[in-house]
C-alpha cells in the first residue's frame, strides 16, 4: 500500500527568500527551514539509507528521494515505513522511539540512535563505538567543567556538556573542507556527470563548513573564557543552546557522510559515478532561513539538488552498520 502511505511533494515552488525569513513549505530538497528538511536518519535498512525524518502534519514522516529521478520528494509517514520497505531490527527500534518524540531535532535523533546501537541492534562494532563515544563525551564534559571552574557552579554544570558538544561539532568543518579538497581534485580529473557530481559534493561541503564555522566560532570563543561564558549565561539563561542547536542542524548527517566518502575512497569507488551519485543525493541541503545576504543565499543554493534520484542498491546493511560504528 505504498501509494496510500506516501505523498509526493511537487516542485514549481517559490524562490527561497533571503534575510533569514522562514520560507514556508519549500521542497525538502530546497528547504526553507531546517524543520522542512528534517534530520538525517542513521538507518541500517538499505531502502532508508540517508533518509531524513521530520515533523509532519500527521506525525513524524520520512523524506526520501524519488527512485524515478523525478523532482520532488517521497514522504512516508514513519508509522507506515514498513509498508514501503522491511526495516531492520535496528530501524524498528529507532522508528518506535522516534514516534514517541514530542519534537524532532538532531540531538534527539542522535540519542535514540545511540540507544539502538547500545542495544546491539546494529552489531557489536556499533555497540562498542556507541559505548566508547558515550564515555568520551562524559570525559569531555568533565574537562569542560574543569575549564569553566571560574564561573558559577550551577551554570558550569549546565554549560559543561554544551561546551563539550560545541567542541565536538567544531571538529567537523575542517573535515568537510578536507573532503571538499579531495572532491574538487576528483572533479578536476573527471568529466561529464562525474565531474559535476564531485563538484556539487565539494560545494556542499564547503558551504556547510562555512555556516558551521560561522555559528561555532563565537560560541567557542565565549565558552573558552569562563567570565564571558558566565556573563552570556547570566544575560540569557538559555545561552548557548539555541546557537548550538542551530550548528547541530547545519552539520547534521555529515559525520555519516564523511565516513561514507572515506569508505568509497578505500574501496576505490570514487571513479564510479554511481557512488558519487549516491553520496550527492544523500547530502542534506541547507535551508533558505540560514541566508542573510545574497552571497549566503548563493552558498545555501550550492547545497540544493532537487532533481537527484535515489540510487538503488548503493548501500547495503553491512556498509550502513559499518558507518554507524565509524560515526557513533
Amino acid at each position, binding site marked *: 500500500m505504498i501509494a496510500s502511505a506516501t505523498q509526493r511533494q511537487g516542485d514549481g515552488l517559490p524562490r527561497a527568500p533571503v534575510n533569514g525569513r522562514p520560507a514556508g513549505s519549500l521542497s525538502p530538497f530546497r528547504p526553507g527551514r531546517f524543520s522542512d528538511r528534517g534530520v538525517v536518519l542513521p538507518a541500517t535498512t538499505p531502502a532508508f539509507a540517508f533518509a531524513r525524518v521530520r515533523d509532519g502534519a500527521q506525525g513524524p514522516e520520512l523524506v526520501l528521494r524519488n527512485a524515478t529521478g523525478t523532482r520532488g520528494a517521497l514522504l512516508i509517514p514513519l508509522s507506515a515505513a514498513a509498508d514501503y520497505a522491511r526495516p531492520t531490527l535496528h530501524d524498528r527500534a529507532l522508528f518506535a522511539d522516534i514516534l514517541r518524540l514530542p519534537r524532532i531535532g538532531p540531538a534527539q535523533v542522535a540519542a535514540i540512535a545511540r540507544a539502538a546501537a547500545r542495544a546491539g541492534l546494529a552489531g557489536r*562494532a556499533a555497540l562498542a563505538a556507541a559505548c566508547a563515544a558515550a564515555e568520551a563525551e562524559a570525559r569531555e564534559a568533565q574537562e569542560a567543567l574543569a575549564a569553566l571552574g571560574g564561573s558559577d557552579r550551577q551554570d558550569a554544570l549546565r554549560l559543561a556538556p554544551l561546551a563539550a558538544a560545541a567542541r565536538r561539532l567544531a571538529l567537523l568543518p575542517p573535515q568537510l573542507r578536507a573532503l571538499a579538497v579531495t572532491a574538487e581534485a576528483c572533479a578536476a580529473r573527471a568529466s561529464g556527470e562525474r565531474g559535476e557530481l564531485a563538484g556539487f559534493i565539494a560545494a556542499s561541503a564547503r558551504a556547510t563548513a562555512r555556516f558551521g564555522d560561522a555559528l561555532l566560532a563565537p560560541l567557542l570563543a565565549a565558552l573558552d573564557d569562563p567570565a564571558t561564558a558566565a556573563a552570556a549565561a547570566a544575560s540569557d539563561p538559555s545561552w548557548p543552546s539555541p546557537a548550538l542547536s542551530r550548528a547541530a542542524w547545519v552539520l547534521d548527517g555529515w559525520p555519516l557522510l564523511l565516513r561514507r566518502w572515506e569508505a568509497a575512497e578505500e*574501496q*576505490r569507488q570514487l*571513479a*564510479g559515478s554511481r557512488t558519487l551519485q549516491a553520496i550527492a543525493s544523500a547530502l542534506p541541503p541547507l535551508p533558505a532561513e540560514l541566508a542573510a545576504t545574497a552571497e549566503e543565499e548563493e552558498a545555501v543554493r550550492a547545497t540544493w539538488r532537487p532533481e537527484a534520484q535515489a540510487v538503488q542498491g548503493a548501500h547495503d546493511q553491512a556498509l550502513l552498520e559499518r558507518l554507524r560504528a565509524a560515526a557513533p
Partner: protein
Amino acid sequence: MTAPTGLDRRTLADLTERLARARPEAIRDVIALIDRLPERGEADSLIAPMRPRLALMRHIVRRPASFGRVLAHPFEDLLVAPNAWRRGSLSVPRTAMPVAIALAAEALPEDARRDVSARLADATMDDAEAVRSAGATIWPAAAARFGAIEAAGLPPGLALPMRAADLRALLGGLGETLRLAGPLTELLSAAPRGTVPAWEQVEHALRDTAAEAAALSPECFARTALILMRRFIAAGPVVGLLREVGERAAGGGAERRLGAALDTFLAELPGQLPDAGALALLPYPVQQAAVAEAVAIVERAGQEIGTWQPERRDNLRDAQTRLIALLRRRVPECLSAELLEPLARAAAEGPAGRSRADRIEELEAAARAAWAMVAAARRLGAVDDLAIALRHAAEAVSALAASMPQGAPADRIGRTDLARIIEILAGPDAAERALAMAG
C-alpha cells in the same frame, strides 16, 4: 630446473600442500618473501597453484611492480594457466611470459632499463602512476621488438615454451596489442578487479579502444575483444558493442575474428571461475564479491550470446553448471561448519565457555556470505535446496536463541547477536519472532 638452496623437492611439495590450505595473511607473507628473492627459481612453482586465489586477493596481497608485471599489465586478462591453453586460443599461457619478458628487456638500452627499475622501486601494481610511467618506456619498445620477431623470426638460443611458430605468432599478437597499451591501461584502471564499473562510465572508452584495435588488424581486434569481454562483460553489453564496432570495421575480418574471441572466452570461462576450496580460504566479503562477479559474468554472457551458435550455449551451460555446483558445495559448508557449529559450541559452553563475543562479527560475515551466495545462485536458476538450507540454518539459530539463558554477560554471545544472525539469514521478521519467543 634446480631448487633454490636449502629447498629440496619434498620440502617444496610440503610447502605447496600447506599453502593450498593457508589463510590469506599467511599467503601474503609467503608471496612477499618470494617476491623479494633475486632469483625465484622453483619458488615460482609455489606461486603457480595459488594464482587463482591471488587473482581474488589483490587487495590483500599487493604485488610489487616489476618489469614483467608492467609489461603484461595491458594484456593481463589474456594470461591463463599453461594447462588451460590450447593451440588456436587467443589467450596467452603464463609459460610464454618469461621469454616475452626477456625479449622485451633486451629491446631496451641499459640506461632505460635502469630508469624503469628506479621508477618501479618500492612501487606496487596499485601505483597507477608508476605503472603508467614505466609502461610508457616498456610498451612501445616491446611492441616494436615483438613485431620485428614476428616478421624476421625468433632469435636463436631461446628456451621455447611452445612450438616456435606458435610463439612467433603469439609475440606478434602481443606486440600489436601493446600498441594499444595506453588506452587499455586507462580503461582497465576504471575497473579495478573485484569491481563492476557503471556501463555508462566505460562505454565510450570501450568503443574507442575497440575501434582502434579494429583499425590495426582483425587479430588485434580479437585479442582486445577478449580482454574487454573478460574485464567488462559483467558491466554491460560488451559483446553487442564489439559486434557493432566489428561490423563497421573495414574488410569484414574484425567481425569474423570476434567469433574466435567469443569462442575463447566461453571455452575458458569454466576454468576461470573460482573453485570451492580456494573460495573457502578467502575473507568472506571477497568470497561474496567473487561469486557475485562470476554470476554476473555468466548471466550477462547468456544475454549477450543470444542466438549465436548452439555450441557456445553449451560452453556457457558448462560454466553455469560448474558455478551452481560450486555454490551447492560452498553454501552448506559455510552454514554448517563455519556458522552453526561454532554457534552450537558457544551455546553448549554457556557463559563460562571460551567463545567470546568478538567472534560474532566473523560469524555474521559467514552468514552474510552464505545469504549473498544463495541470492547470487537464484539468478542462475532454481536453487530451492540452497534457499531451504538457509531457512533451516535460521531455524537452528532461533532454537539456540530460545535455549539461551537470560542475562548472558556482555562479552559473550547473546540473544541479540543470534537475532542479528537470523536477520541476515531470514530477514528482520524472523529475527523479531525469534527475539519474541526467546523473551
